């Protein structure tokens, strides 16, 4: 080692590891919110690095809309086994069955908002005091204001105008019974950083991120995968396209893009040349200009 500075990716990694170690030190029962998407995979990888050679210290929590890509579920289960970690599932289907929430109706129905209840119920019933997320400030404008350590009241709500100040790297995770924190170790990363890091570290990700042939329909300006969960009618005409996904979420609203990128190198190249933000393909964010902020206030990821 001849140079005495870190490059930006090394500095971001060091910052994230610092944050994860603060979580382990400051909370009793922390979990990683695991969606099977690249951001939560990167956070999981960072946690593995942060505590090496000790055992992986967090449980993974999956908020399951019931509308999953089978590939994501397989990936999740395999990772859990590899880490020797606990899996906690918060089920939206269960919340519907119990009458905690009511399913949306119609062609554009989505279980996105319903996740909030499943998430908060699971946090409460498992007495979780910290949920670590893969949220990044560059994803969306309401997220740009999010702290690393983000306080939630005992209704799980975020009060963006009344956030705790966060100075230097002195993170304050103190809270009362029933309250919890959301912690975002990769707050300062961009989509490009995440991909460069996945490439550098050679991190395994679900096959859905690589270009593959799939039956899709054109809806809300992106290619929505045909699945048993998708409400279709005569207006929809399924076609087979070579696509890949930039984010993974609920299979009924996660749109893919046409792509030939079937290796990590090609994906990095493609992302670098991209003209749309990744959330441009998510119907959940398009409902109104402040829809993310509204959902986040109520307790969304």
């Amino acid at each position, binding site marked *: 080692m001849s140079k005495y500075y870190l490059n930006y990716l090394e500095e971001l990694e060091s910052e994230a590891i610092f944050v994860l170690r603060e979580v382990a030190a400051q909370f009793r029962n922390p979990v990683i919110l695991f969606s099977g998407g690249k951001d939560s995979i990167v956070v999981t990888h960072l946690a593995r690095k942060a505590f090496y050679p000790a055992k992986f210290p967090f449980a993974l929590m999956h908020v399951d809309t019931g509308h999953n890509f089978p590939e994501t579920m397989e990936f999740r289960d395999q990772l859990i086994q590899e880490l020797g970690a606990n899996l906690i599932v918060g089920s939206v289907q269960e919340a519907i069955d119990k009458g905690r929430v009511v399913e949306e109706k119609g062609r554009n129905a989505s279980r996105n908002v319903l996740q909030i209840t499943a998430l908060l119920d699971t946090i409460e019933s498992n007495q979780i005091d910290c949920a670590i997320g893969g949220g990044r400030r560059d994803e969306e404008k309401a997220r740009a204001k999010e702290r690393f350590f983000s306080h939630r009241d005992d209704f799980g709500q975020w009060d963006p105008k009344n956030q705790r100040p966060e*100075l230097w790297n002195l993170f304050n995770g103190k809270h009362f019974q029933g309250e919890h924190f959301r912690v975002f170790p990769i707050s300062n990363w961009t989509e490009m950083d995440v991909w460069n890091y996945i490439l550098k570290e050679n991190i395994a990700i679900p096959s859905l991120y690589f270009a593959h042939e799939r039956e899709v329909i054109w809806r809300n300006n992106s290619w929505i995968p045909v699945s048993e969960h998708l409400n279709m009618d005569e207006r929809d005409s399924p076609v087979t396209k070579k696509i890949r996904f930039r984010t993974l979420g609920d299979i009924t609203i996660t749109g893919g893009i046409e792509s030939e990128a079937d290796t990590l190198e090609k994906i990095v190249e493609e992302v670098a040349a991209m003209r749309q933000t990744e959330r441009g393909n998510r119907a959940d964010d398009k409902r109104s200009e402040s829809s993310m902020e509204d959902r986040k206030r109520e307790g969304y990821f």
Partner: protein
Amino acid sequence: MIGNYAEKMSIENNQLLRISTAGSVDDGKSTLIGRLLYDSKSIFEDQLEAIETTTKRKGREGIDLALFTDGLRDEREQGITIDVAYRYFTTPKRKFIIADTPGHIQYTRNMVTGASTANVAIILVDARNGVIEQTRRHSYIASLLQIPHVIVCVNKMDLVDWKEDRFLDIQQQYEGILSKMSIKDVRYIPISALEGDNVVNRSENMSWYQGAPLLHTLETLHISSDLNKIDTRFPVQTIIRPQTDKFHDYRGYAGRLESGILRKGDEVVALPSGFNSRIKSIDTFDGTFEEAFAPMSITITLEDDIDISRGDMIVRKNNQPNQVQEFDAMICWLNSSPARPRGKYTIRHTTNEQKSMITEVVYKMDINSLERNSEATEIKTNDICRIKLKTTKPLMIDEYRDNRATGSFILIDDGTNETVAAGMIIS
């Protein structure tokens, strides 16, 4: 054209630069950041479309660049920046994080927050108004938080006919206020955020200006030497004890090296216990290192079995911080309830936590006039004061101006759990 400037960037020599911006309302901060993002091609098509739609809905023409940074709904509606918003962009030379902070006096605490981690402050001055009260305030905060570099951008040069005289005049005004502060490196750039002159591209309207445009300045600012590489400070975050067959007796101390360098074999001392030992290994997931430097997150093991826990600090034997229970500090009061006279607060310093009490208010700083008021006794929101603090157990401190990590602290109110003050240690 929209696209990504980052296409061919190399990661290897690319450093991270943290910027904070300050300026009073309507000086053009948001426009400037929007311009930086736009001209460096860091804005995506769908973001641009959303902004165009919003601009049109407000009955205005074209694209309002300020809308890229004004995030929360209340701010979009009121058209002002309330909280700190973070923006990211990358050029082939660097990755940038911009903390956009509001300028009103009632948001002093937000400015302090944005400034706490910044390598460089951009201070905006409206060319028509020159140096005003707010400029002084923002500069004082940059100085208080010891931001190593300050760039004074004289904005809206288009409204003063691009005149050099005006620019030089403002530069002179600014040099006048500098004498009361400790800012190491100051530069001046005449710009028009609205029209883009000297932001990313060199201005054709101001050929008299020989210096570099803002972006180039940010890309080439020398920052490696800003970090303290002399005083080795390793606050312990957590203990790594695998207790597996393979790592049966492994006991590692995990933390981030906040300053200085550590090598295998170095003689170290654990504080506050004072026990000596040597570095046996520096471990990471990626392997064992011969040496580590700040700000690396590492795990170290020692030759001797000594009792160390979170909040302790490992340092070199011949270079130790001060261990004190009483010290002076500048604080910025962040909370909406005032400080309680002789109030007790939890102090968080590095990874260490103790109880503390404010024993005296030495003076309150009037950050507009930069006068000290030694009569003041109460501490309210946004106040900046010099205080005396007493802790129940010794802290391992350095002066803030020598070491941002071991010279800073926060105070937490045990009644509400809120972070109520930010502090910078004087002695």
